C-alpha cells in the first residue's frame, strides 16, 4: 500500500529531479557561456599582454641595438682617432726632420738641382718671383743671381714652405711649387699607407 507520504515523497522526488535537471542545463548553459566569455577575455588579455610584451621587447631590442651600435661605432672612432693622432705625429716629425735637413749639404745640392729643373720650364720668362724660407734667402740669393743674370727676379720669404721654394712666372701666371711642404703634402698618402699597414 502506498501511503500518502510515500506518494508525496515520490512526487516531490519527481518534481525535484525535473527541476534539478532543468537547473543543471541552465547552469551548464551559463557555465559554458560564461566560460566562453571568460576564455575569450582571457585570450584577449593574453594577446594584449603578449603584444605589450613583444612591444616592450621590441623597444628593448631597439635600445639594445642602439647602445651596441653606438658603442661599436664609438670604439671604431676611438681607434681611428688614435691612428690619426699617430699619423699626424709622424707627419709632424717628418716636418721637423725636413727642417733639420735644410741645414745639410745634400739639401743644397737638391735645391740647386730643382732650381735648374724649374728654370728650364720658365726659360722664356723675364720676371720671376721666388719664395723661400728665411735661412735660404741669404744662402741662395747670390747663387741664383749668378746663375740667371738675364732674369729679373725678386726673392720673398715664406717660412711655411719648410724648405725648397716656389717660383712664379709673373708674365704668364704660372707657378711651380718645389717646396718641402708640398712634397710632404703629396707624400701623405704614401706615409699613411705605410703607417696604417704597420698599425694593422
Amino acid at each position, binding site marked *: 500500500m502506498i501511503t500518502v507520504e510515500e506518494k508525496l515523497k515520490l512526487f516531490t522526488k519527481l518534481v525535484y529531479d525535473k527541476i534539478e535537471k532543468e537547473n543543471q542545463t541552465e547552469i551548464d548553459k551559463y557555465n559554458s557561456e560564461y566560460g566562453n566569455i571568460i576564455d575569450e577575455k582571457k585570450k584577449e588579455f593574453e594577446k594584449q599582454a603578449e603584444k605589450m610584451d613583444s612591444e616592450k621587447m621590441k623597444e628593448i631590442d*631597439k635600445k639594445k641595438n642602439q647602445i651596441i651600435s653606438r658603442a661599436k*661605432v664609438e670604439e671604431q672612432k676611438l681607434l*681611428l682617432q688614435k*691612428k690619426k693622432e699617430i699619423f699626424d705625429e709622424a707627419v709632424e716629425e717628418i716636418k721637423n726632420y725636413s727642417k733639420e735637413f735644410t741645414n745639410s749639404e745634400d739639401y743644397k745640392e737638391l735645391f740647386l738641382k730643382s732650381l735648374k729643373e*724649374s728654370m728650364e720650364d720658365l726659360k722664356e720668362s723675364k720676371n720671376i718671383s721666388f719664395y723661400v724660407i728665411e735661412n735660404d734667402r741669404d744662402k741662395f740669393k747670390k747663387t741664383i743671381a749668378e746663375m740667371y743674370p738675364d732674369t729679373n727676379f725678386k726673392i720673398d720669404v715664406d717660412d711655411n714652405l719648410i724648405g725648397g721654394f716656389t717660383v712664379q712666372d709673373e708674365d704668364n701666371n704660372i707657378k711651380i711649387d718645389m717646396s718641402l711642404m708640398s712634397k710632404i703634402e703629396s707624400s*701623405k698618402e704614401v706615409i699613411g699607407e705605410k703607417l696604417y699597414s704597420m698599425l694593422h
Partner: protein
Amino acid sequence: MLMKGDNMIKEYTQLDKIEGPLIILSGVENVSYDEIVEIRTKSGVKHGKVVQLYKDKAIVQVFEPTSGLSVKDVSVKFTGNPLTISLSKDILGRVFNGIGEPIDGGGNVFGGVKRDVNGRPMNPVAREYPRNFIQTGISAIDCLTTLIRGQKLPVFSGNGLPHNELAAQIVKQAKISDEENGEFAIVFAAMGLKHDDAQFFLKSFEESGVLQRVVMFLNLADDPVVERIITPRCALTAAEYLAFEENMHILVIMTDMTSYCEALREISSAKEEVPGRKGYPGYLYSDLASLYERAGMMKTSKGSITQIPILTMPNDDITNPIPDLTGYITEGQIVLSRDIYQRNVYPPINILPSLSRLAKDGIGEGYTREDHPGLANQIFAAYSKVQEVKALSQVIGEDELSDIDKKYLQFGKAFEYEFLNQSFDENRSMEETLDLGWKVLSILPESELDRIDSKLIEKYYRRG
C-alpha cells in the same frame, strides 16, 4: 728623398673668367678631359673637374661654391687624374662628405684601393640576372612590388610623405643576407638632405643595429650644390667595391634624387647648354642611367648592389622629367600617394602605378609561394576596378551602386586598412602577407577572380 724633381707640377695663378660654378683658364698645357683640379685660395682648397677643353683653354666645373673666388690670388693645379676615392673594408661605419672626404674625425682611409668615382659600364655578359627576392616585411612591397636582390627600385614620393620612414623600415627589416649571415652593408648617399632627415636615418640605423655596417656620404641641404653631382658616384663606387671585391650584399639608399637633378640643371644652365624638358639638360637620361645602372649582380662575384633611390616628385607629378626618366631606367618603382596618406594609411603606397619588373622571375613556386603571381595580379586588377567604382559612386551615390560594385568598395577599404596599412615596427612574413591578401580578396565573390588559376582558388579562397 722627398725632393725629387720628377713630379714637378705647374700651377696657374690667374683665371680668365668665373661664371657660376665654372672657371675658365687659358695658357694651360697637358690637361686631360675630366681630370680633377685643385684650386687653392687664401681661404682653402676647392676642387673641380675639367669639363671642356679648347686649344689652350680649359673650362673647369668647381664643386664648392665659387663665391669669394677672384681671378687673381688663386693657384690652380691639374692633378692629372679623375676623381678617385680610397676604399677598403675600413670604410664601414664611416661618414664622408659629398666628395668622399672623411668628416667624422677619423682621418683619411689609407692603404685601400683607389677607384675612379665615375665607374665604368658593367658588361651585360658579365651580369647575372637577379632572381632572389628580398623580404622587406612590408606587405605592399613583398606581395605586389617584390624587391629583388640586385634590383634598382626607386621610391617616388612627394614632399612631406613618409618616404624616409619607408626606406628606414626596409633597411631595418630587409633580409638581405640569409645564408651568408653578416655579409651585408648599407651605403647611404644623401644629396641636399635636410639635417633632421639625416638625423632620422642615423637614429634608425642605430636602432636597427646596423650603424657599423653603414657607409655614409652626406651632402646636406646647406652643403655646396655642385658637390651633389659627385655624392652618388662616390657612394656607388664604394658599393661596387664592397659588393664585387668584398662579396657583400649592398643596399644603396640615395636620397633625394630630385636635388641631384636640380644640381645638374644648375650646372647645365651655367654652361649655357641647350635645355631639354623643364630646363633639364638633354643628357639627363644618360646621366641618371650612369648611376642607376650601377646596380646589379655579377657572375664572378657573390655580392650584389640593390638600389633604392628616393625622389620627391615636384607637384606630385609623375610625368615630371625626374620620375619619368628614372622610371624608364629603373626596374620598376614604388609610388607613394598623398591621397592614401591622408586616409591615415602607412605606408601610403599606390600600388597601381607601382611595379617591380624583376618580380616576375623571383616569385611564385620555388621562390615564394605558388599562388603569389596570380594573387598579386588579381589584387591589381581588383584595386583598379575599385577606382572605377569610386568614381562612379561619386556621381550616382554609393547607394545606387550594384551589389557587386559595393563589394568592390568594401574590398578597397579592407585592402587599404588591413593589407596596406601596417605599423612602422610591423614585420610581416611572406606567408602572413599572402594569407592577408587572400583574406581581403575573399570579400569578392569567386566569380570575380578571373586572374587566378581555378586550382589555386580552390586551395586558398575563403580558406581562413
